[in-house]
């Protein structure tokens, strides 16, 4: 059912001169914008607002081997220009994702589905990827080695380059689709992590996941989130994300997906110019259910206004001739 609120909303079906399509690995994306994992569930809810076929691709919620109920509540806090979450990978487990969620998404014939995979040990990840590899509906795997919200798992792989490389190698052995490794920003040297993943066989990288943060409820005199810490996302983190995308895309030869605080088309332009080949939109979906399609249209309009014929022209455009930071 289309949510009736949509009636009052101006149509986003702008006509663009620019060609928004990008080739990303084996995927021909009609535009470079996709929702970020954990910020779009498995698509059903937003499908009530617009046709998911309009997205470049969809990245679904982190999928683990077994079902997970996640952390206690409160799981969310608002921060200046951002938010903290400590969902803790709540998801129905890979089998139910395959049985219940992916078939639903198959009705969208022009929507590549990227499944975000998480776990606590390499074996978990391997098993999830093996299962997903048997399903036609999966266009790519996004390896979440950067979730700050689960004890023993996730983020360690994302902060130790040796562990990350081992993980990537193990996954590459079983994956039948491209593997995108999602990097954590909570590291001293993200370039080192990126290079380790590239060398281990990653097909692409996506960054950033959330930064670890905390808010204190000063009235209650304790951390606001039940979990104590949570992941920071939203516009607040954009400068950090842009910096990391710029640095990483300058150092590796595999494509990079830019993520972090994208709210408007201009933010997508910023990430593309920093070197991203595509972008993911997370927190913005919570503020505006139409965020992804609005951003696609704003991106198109920006290109039109700036005489950009193909969005590909923007990729890395801020790097100048040498592709390095001026110093």
């Amino acid at each position, binding site marked *: 059912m289309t949510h009736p609120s949509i009636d009052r909303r101006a149509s986003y079906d702008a006509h663009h001169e620019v060609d928004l399509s990008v080739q990303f690995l084996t995927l021909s994306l009609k535009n470079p914008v996709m929702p970020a994992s954990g910020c779009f569930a498995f698509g059903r809810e937003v499908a009530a607002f617009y046709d998911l076929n309009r997205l470049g691709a969809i990245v679904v919620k982190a999928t683990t081997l077994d079902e997970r109920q996640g952390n206690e509540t409160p799981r969310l806090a*608002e921060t200046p220009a951002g938010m903290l*979450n400590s969902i803790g990978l709540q998801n129905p487990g890979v089998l139910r994702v395959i049985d219940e969620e992916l078939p639903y998404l198959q009705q969208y014939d022009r929507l590549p589905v990227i499944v975000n995979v998480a776990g606590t040990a390499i074996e978990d990840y391997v098993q999830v990827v093996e299962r997903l590899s048997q399903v036609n509906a999966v266009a790519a795997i996004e390896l979440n080695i950067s979730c700050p919200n689960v004890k023993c798992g996730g983020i360690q792989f994302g902060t130790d380059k040796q562990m990350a490389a081992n993980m990537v190698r193990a996954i590459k052995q079983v994956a039948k689709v491209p593997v995108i490794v999602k990097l954590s920003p909570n590291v001293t040297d993200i370039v080192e992590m990126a290079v380790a993943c590239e060398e281990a066989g990653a097909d692409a990288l996506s960054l950033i996941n959330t930064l670890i943060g905390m808010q204190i409820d000063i009235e209650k005199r304790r951390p606001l989130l039940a979990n104590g810490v949570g992941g920071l996302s939203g*516009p607040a983190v954009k400068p950090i994300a842009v910096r990391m995308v710029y640095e990483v895309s300058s150092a590796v030869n595999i494509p990079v997906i830019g993520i972090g605080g994208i709210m408007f088309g201009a933010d997508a332009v910023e990430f593309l110019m920093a070197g991203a080949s595509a972008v993911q939109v997370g927190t913005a*979906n919570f503020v505006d259910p139409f965020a992804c399609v609005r951003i696609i249209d704003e991106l198109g309009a920006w290109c039109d206004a700036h005489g950009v014929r193909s969005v590909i022209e923007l990729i890395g455009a801020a790097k100048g001739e040498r592709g390095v930071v001026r110093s």
Partner: protein
Amino acid sequence: MALVQIISQQSIGADIFELTLEAPVDLRVFPYEPGQFLHIRVTDSFDFLLRRPLSLCKVDLIKNHLSVVYRVQGQGTRRLAAKRAGEILDVLGPLGHGYPKHKDDRAALLIGGGIGVPPLVELARQLRQDAQSVHTVVGFQTKAQAILVSELETYGPVTVVTNDGSLGNHGLVTDVLTQAFCADFDRYYACGPTPMLQAVQRRLSEWQLPGYLSLEERMGCGIGICVGCVHKISRNGRIAQLKTCKEGPVFDAQEVVFT
């Protein structure tokens, strides 16, 4: 999602306001439920990035207006309280699952605590329309915070309880919910702070009165995509963390697990 105009904003109690809006959808076409909520952007500044959930309180189907009643809790509701008639608000909703209807019931018990009272107004109206008798028990900290009592009285008797005895009975709503009192009702509908809901659930399950609780959790999206707003619900033999924005905020009282 819609940009709607504010029709009026009125102070109706200590730091409590009633905000009347153009409905974001045509309420005669789109079936809404009492207990559903609106998800409201209080400003377009990133300082208040997330929307605020506020329950439907009153509906005017002729004008296609609706109202919410809220207490200034933090900075976001403070900003909302500064808005004036004619200003534009970004509103999503009505969202979620409200109070279900039971056509064969004859007598409903409504229980509200503090700023949990507002959704009971539209609920009472609809129950009366279905020819059920409605008795409402509402509890407040103190007289200055008592709201919507006369509105509720148009639909049936209202028992008021205050913590300090400054209005109505002295005590807690549960003090009123004796077995004798509850024997007259087919079902109850509660909304209020968690400790109240928990006490109500415990008490009324003793008297075997079925009912519904409207839960309050911090929300991100309000539409089911962030999985931030969950509450433990016991259903089909297992306890799962269900989304209060999508599967709730109203749940069958039997199913709600408090920890």
